[in-house]
């Protein structure tokens, strides 16, 4: 393993130089900077899922141990994808380089590298496309913005494909809706053809494939992790909860990202789910097989993503549930919303989701048969089915982070805000150009949340963190809430770095705190086992 470069101090990192180099980008070879890229994948991970060219390799080294005909593979790969994706073909052709996207990317804002302007990041691949697939590029070469694919160009494509979190913020501003994600997704597919995956992505992919979840939690471990939460819930509420696993005949299958079973603050969100479902008395089950809502496969290839998401419908069918409830996650929801039904549908063995508590039929999910837990909970609160005491969250001044995928790939904006307003008394929005469809990425999505690329992550996280800093300075905000497991894991690091006194939580952690449960003891602690406001003396 290469050594992990520690990022410079925030004061240093925030001195960002946006000056453009004198030299044309096409003549500037890529330079691999430590702290800005991830380790190459171990061979075993590639072997587990049958990916090409498994071997030990290091991105920082000269020799990438590529197959001899690698160039042919890439060109053929581009051709195949141009024929399969209209988005790809179109977005290769119609960019006018107006530059509206340039300063919309968190990596460009936080790093100043011109190749991280979305337009230029796309040009890296477009230039190759022009050379091999357009008349102008073939005839006129460099003056037409075309270039040969050589090893240096391949390395550049690799380096910058992993400096895009596919957050789609640029596509909001593009007059033609060009979505850089559609381009870097293709770049990553091409990379995948040569076995150039990163370790941090391939580990979770192979885990998820074999064991059902990214973290590689085996069935008994999932159960014991959750039992550990149950003990804490009992400590806080005096209530003993007994969830079920892989239970046939349950009405609802609950699927959530495995990250929330593993590390705080996600674990508190998982506790919130357990408490809510127990209080409602709904007939639901967890699954140890479909134990992952997220999908790191999406960060390698569409095919791999499809292979991983297979488990959700398959398990719903096996268990004979009526519909599926999904936990808080970002890219999980982009995939469930925009891909799952297309991949593995029609889910005609399921019923249109209907809340057993309110009777609300979720017509918006009548085909996919899966709803987001924020939709579910918002409906409960609107119908007065939950007894809530928001004052239990009174020590918190909360702001809301819209996750890229739920904001720009779905439009889940008001549901979580409605829930939030009902479970906390102090909620402050960040500046409007940094929320909703204009929200900023945490900086570490799409499998970039490794340790060795911390400088990249902190740079990418800068715009989001800076908006949090604004509400902290103005309103004393001390909690950043969101509906994304990656956010919970990565914003924690980003806050520690940029805005140290702000913590991170999931929506249902706050719900769990505010939820007044039948038969509970007087609560003195929140789910983090910290004293509740006004209860400090009793400690």
């Amino acid at each position, binding site marked *: 393993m290469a050594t992990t470069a520690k990022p410079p101090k925030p004061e240093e990192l925030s001195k960002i130089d*946006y000056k453009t180099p004198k030299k044309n980008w096409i003549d500037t070879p890529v330079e691999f900077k430590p702290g800005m890229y991830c380790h190459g994948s171990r061979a075993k991970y590639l072997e587990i899922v049958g990916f090409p060219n498994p071997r030990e390799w290091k991105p920082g080294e000269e020799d990438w141990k590529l197959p001899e005909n690698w160039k042919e593979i890439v060109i053929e790969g581009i051709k195949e994808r141009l024929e399969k994706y*209209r988005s790809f073909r179109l977005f290769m052709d119609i960019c006018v380089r107006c530059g509206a996207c340039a300063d*919309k990317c968190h990596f460009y804002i936080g790093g100043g590298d011109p190749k991280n302007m979305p337009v230029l990041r796309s040009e890296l691949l477009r230039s190759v496309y022009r050379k091999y697939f357009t*008349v102008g590029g073939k005839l006129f070469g460099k003056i037409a913005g075309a270039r040969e694919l050589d090893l240096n160009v391949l390395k550049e494509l690799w380096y910058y494909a992993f400096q895009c979190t596919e957050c789609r913020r640029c596509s909001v501003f593009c007059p033609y809706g060009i979505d850089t994600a559609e381009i870097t997704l293709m770049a990553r597919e091409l990379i995948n053809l040569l076995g150039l995956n990163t370790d941090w992505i391939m580990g979770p992919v192979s885990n998820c494939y074999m064991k059902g979840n990214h973290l590689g939690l085996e069935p008994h471990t999932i159960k014991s992790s959750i039992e550990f939460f149950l003990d804490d819930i009992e400590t806080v509420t005096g209530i003993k909860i007994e969830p079920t696993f892989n239970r046939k005949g349950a009405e609802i299958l609950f699927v959530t990202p495995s990250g929330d079973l593993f590390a705080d603050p996600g674990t508190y969100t998982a506790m919130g789910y357990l408490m809510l479902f127990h209080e409602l008395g709904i007939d639901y089950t967890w699954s140890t*097989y479909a134990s992952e809502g997220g999908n790191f496969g999406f960060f390698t290839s569409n095919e791999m993503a499809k292979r991983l998401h297979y488990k959700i419908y398959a398990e719903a069918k096996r268990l004979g549930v009526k519909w599926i409830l999904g936990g808080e996650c970002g890219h999980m929801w982009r995939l469930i919303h925009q891909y799952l039904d297309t991949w593995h549908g029609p889910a005609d063995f399921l019923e249109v989701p209907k809340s057993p508590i309110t009777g609300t039929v979720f017509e*918006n999910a009548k085909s996919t048969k899966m709803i987001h837990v924020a939709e579910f909970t918002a409906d409960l609160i609107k119908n007065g089915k939950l007894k809530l005491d928001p004052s239990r969250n009174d020590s918190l001044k909360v702001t809301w982070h819209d996750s890229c995928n739920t904001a720009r790939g779905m*439009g889940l904006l008001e549901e979580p805000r409605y829930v939030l307003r009902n479970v906390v008394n102090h909620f402050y929005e960040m500046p409007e150009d940094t929320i909703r469809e204009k929200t900023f990425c945490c900086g570490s999505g799409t499998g970039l949340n490794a340790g060795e690329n911390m400088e990249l992550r902190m740079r990418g996280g800068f715009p989001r963190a800076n908006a949090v800093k604004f509400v902290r300075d103005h309103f004393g905000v001390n909690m950043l809430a969101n509906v994304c497991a990656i956010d919970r894991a990565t914003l924690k690091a980003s806050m520690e770095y940029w805005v140290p006194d702000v913590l991170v939580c999931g929506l249902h952690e706050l719900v769990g705190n505010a939820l007044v449960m039948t038969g509970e003891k007087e609560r003195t602690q929140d789910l983090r086992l910290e004293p509740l406001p006004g209860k400090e003396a009793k400690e």
Partner: protein
Amino acid sequence: MKILFSFFTVVVLILLAYAGVNANMHFLFGAVIPYIAVAVFLLGFIYRVLKWGSSPVPFRIPTTCGQQKSLPWIKQNKIENPSSTLGVITRMFLEVFFFRSLFRNLKTQLYEGPRLAYGEAKWLWLAGLAFHWSFLIIFVRHFRFFMQGVPSVIKTIEGLDSFLQVGVPLLYMTDVIILGAVTYLFIRRVFIPQVNYISLAADYFPLFLIFGIAASGVLMRYFFKVHIVGVKELVMGLITFNPVEMQKMQEIGVIFYIHLFLISMLLVYFPFSKLMHMGGVFLSPTRNLANNNRMVRHINPWNYPVKVHTYEEYENEFRDKMKKAGIPVEKES
């Protein structure tokens, strides 16, 4: 370098037309090349659109820019996050005619602190809109040359366009606007460092070319007056596939042929260039699809079966551990 290359290419084109007409090649520049140009444009444009169309849209991937349709009491943003065809049409209409997305443009600035601020940035939107609309109006105005008699719609447009009532012949506002807008688009490309850095010759060339077309048109109308009746006869001759005789062609001033040749070059260049965004914008899957993904299943025509890890394989691996943990299993062993 890219700028000079593009500039001189346009200069060469102008000189070509000038030299050609002086060498009495009126027929070539007044009939043959325009015919070829229109044919290349039409066929090329259609080819490109069909080519895009030949690639399927495997997934429904709208970029949602507002609240989704979910619970009935949550107000959906029906335009920025459309779930119906009408919503999509409205979204596309605003995109195509008013550049909705570009209107959102912001300028990100880093101040001491560090503090990021997002300021208004509407100039690109305004200049883009001014350019495209004036181009469209000028294009429509030119229909007076393509028709026997002049339809009243065209006269109305001409009247509105010249309502300032300045000069003889009356000054068209769009003539001024298009030259101003193209100049602005050029200047920002040169002087905004980021935009300069990303620009290719393919970005400067159409600006020079269109500037050349507009400028030659302006010169022709207001300064070097050409034999306007002759122009109309020539154009009518072209569209009826019955070109006028050489002598009539020679009566028209050379500036007309320069104008016509630059337009011909624009038409030829168009299908091979980024200018195809004109057709492409309609096909953009992040804009022209409804966000009704969970309501209506989207079909991927090349969806194929993939290798998966089945529950059976999973249970086979973990059966003992599952049984020990009290997790139900399908088979006892």
